[in-house]
């Protein structure tokens, strides 16, 4: 077993190969990336392009915040502003969130379940490239979309593109078509990857790894893959219907010809709400790996963690209309969706308590992955509670479409998802590149970003309470919103150096970081049993496991897990 290396105290880890060493050139590197079907390279490419789009969409958000610093500011034209928030939202969900989570899935699932690659390596590469070009297509709208009278440019209909704003009458030019096609394409990539994840985990687990012994990380991605397969087709369907509306005279959403504007909302949110869980469950997946290792204890209540995940996924398919409490549903309809939405808080609460239970009685190591996970727990608690407030329909009648909602979902998507992604990057970077990320730079990143994050988004709860609607390019003075917007913008100015520290750390540590070795965190899952970075075939000999923590068994032969599970 390749894992023999971890018990050999004299084994000296060689520094990993780098570009520029031993005749490796950039042209090799690029060829390597374009033609590869290796799940690890594709995983890193997913994460890398996700980070690239993250920076672009983040710059757009910065412009948005600058515009809102002063009331009646003329820094940006309304159309430019509207394009920015549309592109920011669309990119962050479809070009940052989705590829980042699939990147982690791709890189880690085959190693964690002890196999050599995904079940369909070429489908995997196809999925990545379809996603990547869908991103380029979306951004190409800035150059390609202008139509008659130069109407168009980038999409400006908001990331959920409510009809009939997308009808030909209100969205001239081709901007909406770029949005539609980019999302349709990205959806194909996501479906391909999800099918791949399911087949891989169901067919390629190593000897001894029953479903009950899979790392929770893998379990959560199985649930995510099911959710993607169920939730994405309605999105693709409504994109196709919209295109038919715009070009072939179908009248699904065209209200001027008797179509139904609310129909779009049902289609979109029956995708859109499971999508939120598609994005956040991978965050939980990372926390499920990081928190036990840095508490030095196994996850508390593994079976109920799996059950809670499945429950969240199942209920999430029945909550979509809580985005629509203001469209005028009957009181019965509103009550139903309020109940289903609140019920989802129960399994989510179980998860939080189980993480606390995992830490209870442990020995907490405050390394960077753990620090990001602790911040995640705190921020996700806030996000969850504001979510409960939004589920209370009367409260929601005030809060929906206000800045409170903006604050809420940024606490979910940044405070929870992005923080766990950062934790995951700090945790597995040594595995992927053989070198540790610098601790000092990492803490600069953590503190600047955390302070900036709270300063940016906490005040938005208050401006929402004070009646500030989302997506306004300007506001009049005297409405009580100035100070909260100004704090928010200052927060962004603090976040930016945090991100710069992070990006610098990624590059610096690649060349200069401390050599990590195979198992720098003294962890327990199979990815730490192979070399860092792992060879293309992952394991010389496929491993065999007897419990959920095979490396624990190896390191503690006198007290192995399989005696207790």
């Amino acid at each position, binding site marked *: 077993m390749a894992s023999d290396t971890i018990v050999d105290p004299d084994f000296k880890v060689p520094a990993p190969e780098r570009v520029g060493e031993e005749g490796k050139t950039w042209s090799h590197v690029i060829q390597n990336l374009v033609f590869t079907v290796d799940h690890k390279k594709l995983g890193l490419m997913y994460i890398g392009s996700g980070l690239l789009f993250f920076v672009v969409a983040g710059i757009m958000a910065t412009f948005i915040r600058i515009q809102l610093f002063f009331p009646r500011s003329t820094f940006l034209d309304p159309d430019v502003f509207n394009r920015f928030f549309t592109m920011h939202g669309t990119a962050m969900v479809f070009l940052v969130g989705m590829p980042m989570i699939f990147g982690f899935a791709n890189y880690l699932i085959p190693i964690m379940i002890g196999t050599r690659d995904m079940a369909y390596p070429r489908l995997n590469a196809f999925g990545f490239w379809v996603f990547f070009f869908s991103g380029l297509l979306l951004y190409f709208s800035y150059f390609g979309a202008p139509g008659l009278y130069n109407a168009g440019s980038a999409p400006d209909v908001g990331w959920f593109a409510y009809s009939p704003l997308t009808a030909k009458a209100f969205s001239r030019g081709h901007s909406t078509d770029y949005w539609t096609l980019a999302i349709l394409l990205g959806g194909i990539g996501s479906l391909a990857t999800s099918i791949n994840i399911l087949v891989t985990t169901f067919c390629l687990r190593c000897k001894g790894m029953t479903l009950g012994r899979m790392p929770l990380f893998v379990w959560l991605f199985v649930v995510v893959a099911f959710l993607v397969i169920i939730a994405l087709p309605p999105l693709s369907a409504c994109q196709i219907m919209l295109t038919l509306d715009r070009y072939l005279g179908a009248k699904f959403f065209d209200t001027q010809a008797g179509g139904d504007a609310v129909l779009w909302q049902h289609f979109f949110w029956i995708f859109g709400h499971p999508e939120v869980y598609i994005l956040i469950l991978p965050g939980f997946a990372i926390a499920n790996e990081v928190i036990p290792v840095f508490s030095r204890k196994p996850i508390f209540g593994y079976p109920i963690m799996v059950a809670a995940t499945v429950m969240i996924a199942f209920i999430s398919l029945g909550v979509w209309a809580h985005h629509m409490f203001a469209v005028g549903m009957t009181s019965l309809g509103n009550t139903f969706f309020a109940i289903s939405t609140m019920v989802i808080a129960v399994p989510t609460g179980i998860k939080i308590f189980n993480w606390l239970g995992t830490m209870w009685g442990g020995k907490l190591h405050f390394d960077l992955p753990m620090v990001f996970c602790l911040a995640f727990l705190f921020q996700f608690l806030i996000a969850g509670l504001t979510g409960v407030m939004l589920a209370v329909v009367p409260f929601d009648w*005030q809060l929906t479409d206000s800045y409170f909602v903006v604050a809420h979902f940024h606490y979910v998507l940044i405070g929870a998802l992005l923080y766990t992604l950062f934790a995951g990057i700090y945790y597995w970077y040594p595995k992927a590149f053989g070198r540790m990320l610098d601790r000092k730079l990492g803490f600069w990143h953590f503190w600047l970003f955390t302070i900036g994050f709270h300063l940016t988004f906490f005040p938005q709860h208050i401006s929402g309470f004070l009646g500030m609607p989302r997506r306004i390019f300007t506001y009049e003075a005297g409405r009580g919103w100035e100070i909260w917007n100004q704090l928010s913008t200052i927060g962004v100015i603090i976040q930016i150096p945090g991100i710069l520290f992070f990006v610098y750390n990624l590059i610096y540590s690649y060349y200069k970081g401390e050599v990590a070795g195979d198992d720098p965190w003294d962890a327990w899952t199979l990815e730490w049993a192979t070399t860092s970075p792992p060879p293309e075939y992952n394991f010389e000999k496929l491993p065999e496991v007897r419990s959920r923590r095979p490396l624990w068994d190896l390191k503690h032969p006198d007290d192995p897990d399989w005696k207790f599970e």
Partner: protein
Amino acid sequence: MMAVGATGAHAQGAGADLPTHMVADMFKPLSRPAEMIHETSLLVLVICAVIFFVVAGLLLYIVLRFRKKPTDNTQEPPQIYGSTNIELAWTVIPILITVVLILVTSRTIGEIQNAKLPEDALQIRVVGHQWWWEVHYPQYGIITANEIHIPVSSKDPAKARPTEIILQSADVIHSFWVPQLAGKVDLIPNRTNKMWVDPYTIGTFFGNCAEYCGTQHANMLLRVIVDTPENFEKWVADQKAPVPPPQTAQEIEGRRLYYANACVNCHTIGDSVSKGIFGPDLTKLMTRQTIGAGVAPLNHENLLSWVRDPQILKVGCLMPNMQLLDTEAEAITAYLETLK
């Protein structure tokens, strides 16, 4: 950075002397539905705050208590895999909290959505347009725009006169939101939604369109002017009173230009041939406080600027620059200023 004048203080327009509630704080409700929402919200906030302090406190305690100390040996802590009893406890307690929240929520939903309004309730119909509000008073035969005048109601059910608002849209989806009066309800094309307000005090209440509706979504502002029943009736009588004909040569020339240009295709003025329905009704234009759905105070300077080129005050709005000469713009402005 400042493009156009602030719209805070005015002397112009009906109801301009009323107290203004510019900061639309949902925690200072001044109308019955908003107050019912407020009561429910406070309860929810308290419950959420308690949960927050318990869980965050627990997290903090764990972080302090179980952190690895430098004096610790390298022994691993006891390996605990779970506990059915504890897990059961933290499943049941959230379920109980959820049940309480569901009961409170469904009660308030019913109270607001299924409220029975008295027969004499004022009824108005608001039609959303890209980027302004058309306001009808079917009981009075009045049409106006952007500024909604309603009578004050009362906490005493015997004296209360709530206002029912029927919401429709002429183009895309908008949302009617005046936080101190009620929660928001969408205006959706091909659908009719209803809401009601029941304000306790007089004053001008500020609100916005809350559903993104295109370029000038930010400048689709709302004002609800709540006045005493007597003043409201006075306003109604004034809106129905005939407009005096233009007097000066410039005003008469302005009227000629108004009718000779495309203005009539989009705007309505009283019983004249100007019967356009795409833009705001101008019959009693000068009784309003603002133009462009709240983008600027209504005064001579702003009105002239708007007539000359609406794209200066509200870029992207659907009224085009009519390419008028300066003298023509001034004449039309003078004519419009007689509409009071």
